[in-house]
């Protein structure tokens, strides 16, 4: 399932990584943010929206590796952030899609406004297709179900594919095998 997901997601310009443990995944995210220039300099911050899997302590553990992480996501902070980090509830294999019960506005702000979006998702939450997703996540559970397949794109000028119109220019998906445990 993971390999198919990866192939499908990469085919739409997403980057996909997998780690056995939460700690390695978080370390990877910290390195990624730092490499991408997240820093304490003005306009160098990243926003990190809470989700169902990581505790506040988990999130804070990343902070030393990537300074200027903000967990109090507001529209102003998200609009000026270099990167946004969120947790996705499920990943749909046959389309390479992330699914997010995005009722809380912070997750939508962090995943839409910054140019880089990093999404963490437990490997155990891979589902084969849309039908399987809807059996787990539907209007009974969420008022704002967001599906994300690759970064923002357009081909509205001369049919030339261009990445990053209104949403992120880069989408990095980080799977952790033990992320959902105990949640």
């Amino acid at each position, binding site marked *: 399932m993971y390999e198919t997901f990866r192939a499908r997601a990469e085919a739409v310009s997403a980057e996909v990584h997998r780690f056995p443990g939460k700690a390695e995944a978080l370390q990877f995210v910290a390195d990624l943010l730092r490499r991408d220039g997240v820093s304490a300099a003005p306009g160098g911050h990243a926003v990190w929206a809470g989700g169902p899997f990581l505790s506040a302590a988990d999130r804070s553990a990343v902070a030393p590796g990537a300074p200027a992480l903000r967990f109090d996501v507001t529209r102003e902070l998200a609009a000026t952030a270099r990167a946004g980090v969120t947790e996705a509830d499920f990943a749909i294999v046959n389309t390479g899609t992330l699914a997010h019960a995005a009722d809380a506005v912070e997750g939508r*702000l962090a995943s839409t406004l910054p140019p880089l979006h990093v999404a963490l998702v437990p490997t155990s939450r891979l589902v084969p297709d849309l039908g399987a997703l809807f059996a787990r996540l539907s209007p009974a559970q969420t008022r704002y179900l967001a599906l994300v397949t690759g970064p923002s794109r357009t081909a*509205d*000028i001369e049919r030339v594919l261009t990445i990053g119109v209104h949403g992120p220019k880069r989408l990095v998906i980080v799977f952790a095998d033990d992320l959902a445990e105990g949640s």
Partner: protein
Amino acid sequence: MGNDFRRSIAAALDDANLGGALGRFSEAYRASRARAYEDHDFEALRRRIAGVKGDAAGRLDELAARFTAAAVARGAQVFRAGSPQAVKDYVLALARERGARSVVKSKSMASEEIHLNAHLEAAGLSVTETDLGEWIIQLAGQRPSHMVMPAIHMTKEQVADLFSKEVDERLAADIPRLVALARERLRERFLAADIGISGANVAVAETGSLVLVTNEGNARLVTTLPRIHVAIVGLEKLIERFEDVVPILTALPKSATGQLLTSYVSIISGPVANTDGSPKELHVILLDHRRSDMAADPSFKPAMQCIRCASCLNVCPVYRLVGGHVFGKTYTGGIGTVLTAWFDDLASAKDIQGLCIQCGNCKEVCPGMIDIPQLILEVRRRVAQEQGQPMIQRAIFSVVNDRRLFHGLLRAASLAQKPFTRNGLVRHLPLFLSGLTEARSLPAIAPEPLRDTIGRIAQPRSAERAALYAGCLIDFAYPRTGEAVVEILNKAGVEVLFPDGQTCCGAPARYAGAYESAAESARANIEALLADDVRWIVSACPTCTVALKHEFGATLRSLGDEAWAAKAEQVAAKTIEFATLARQLVEEGRLTLPEGRALGRATYHDSCHLKRTLRAEQAPRELLRRQGLEIVEMFEADVCCGMAGSYSLKLPEISGRMLARKLASIEKTGAPLVATDCPGCLLQLRGGLDQSGLPVEVRHTAELLAEAIE
């Protein structure tokens, strides 16, 4: 056809970019669509969609009420608007009550349909389209030319000019930089907007959910940043159950752009919190605007199954040449013609319905399983009923319906054309007829029609008999094709009769919306064809075969003539198209083709009716291969050659461009021979090759086969 309309076609055909971007897209689309559907059973998928949407269209009121109840229970406000004005009044009143000054919109065809922007702007509101293509169109003051790709007709240079004016700075025509500029500019508008207006791709009655599909992410921002969200939803978007979102969401991106899924899908089921923690105000406007009337009309109810993917535009050989603006209204292309006839009025569709060449490409790919060509014929028929047929057309069909007069005139024309004829082709016609021979030469009318020569063929007597239905072209222009059919069937021990009472199959009348004339032709032919007891009624013209096999009954039934419709079914049951019958006789061992010959390369052109109605495209290819020809497939072998009967006379400029594309595809194969099974295509291709001077021969499969068997 109005002169303005003709001028807009001429301008569109001359617009190099239109042909360029659109042509490239339509060529790439077929392959990317096919790839996207690789893991899916498209027929099963579209049956499910047609079932879901067809069911919903049968109970719009009930589903609208259920949607309202479910959405209201979740905290949304739902307004049912009968007319465009009601929507405009509602949105403006809302904006005034809330003191709103600025609006951001994500793509909504329904709001285009009712011209909402103009109304809000006139009242002093700032309205910004945020879909990149829509924003370009808004800055240019134009209408979208495509439902999914609104600005596909524009070049990057034109976009750079527009953006330069907007930012008051000279910008280069560099696409990534233009996109970056749009991001920056529109981001400001998003963050400042008071109201976000969206459409919806699906509205689910049982949950009160809206499904929004975008690639850019603008719908996410429109529904997240402003404190008020207004969704304008046509009633055709309603479905009953949430689980039925799956087939629609599976098909829509694949059919629209060849994507497995769009970058973003938002499924909104009630208001959520705003960024300041306040509850969002969510207003859903359910727009009727004649949709209930359309759903209540049995002929047009299937149009409600449309999911607005625009694949009917993407595969249309006419759309790719002229683009969307010649359609003159919000909705363009095949389904757009039908929607315009309803959402505007029948008169608005009078000219544009004539653009449809009835090739059937769109019907093959429609995920809503809509027989769009048939709906356009119905529009055509109603236009003809309401406004009367053009005088010249009425005169022509009254001649055609009088067989003796019609055939007498054809014989007279055979003499009159002599001064213009060389090698069986008419290259230049004088005066007002000159347009007819601009792109292609016309075939000369044969000195003797098939009905005169056929009696001279010495046939074996046999208990197994077939009636040959020639059709006008084979009878009067290509009698040799008919003789070839007789010779081949004779070889298999079948005696061929030529019922003299046969006349025009009525297809031209039917395709012109003149069903009464078509019915008269049908009755005359049915009488002639049922006079003798034969095993088969065979025709070497796919269009005539379709008329005999599928349309006689439909035409008669639509006029309430059940008695003749029943007889039409007897004709239909016996009717078979030549290549299919010949292959059957070969397989039964009754016809033997010489083995081991190498006759060289040939390419095959599929006639629209043979491929998409009769589904017989393999039979002729097999016959040609078995006789020793190597088939080199041409690019888009099954795309219409532009003939389509009287279409090439009514819109010769479009027909000529389609022919030119076809000739280029033929030339690229390097084959010296084109085979086809339709005398109409043969006329078009042969005439085009004659005018262009390409040394390629065009032959009917029957003639090639007769020569091989000899």
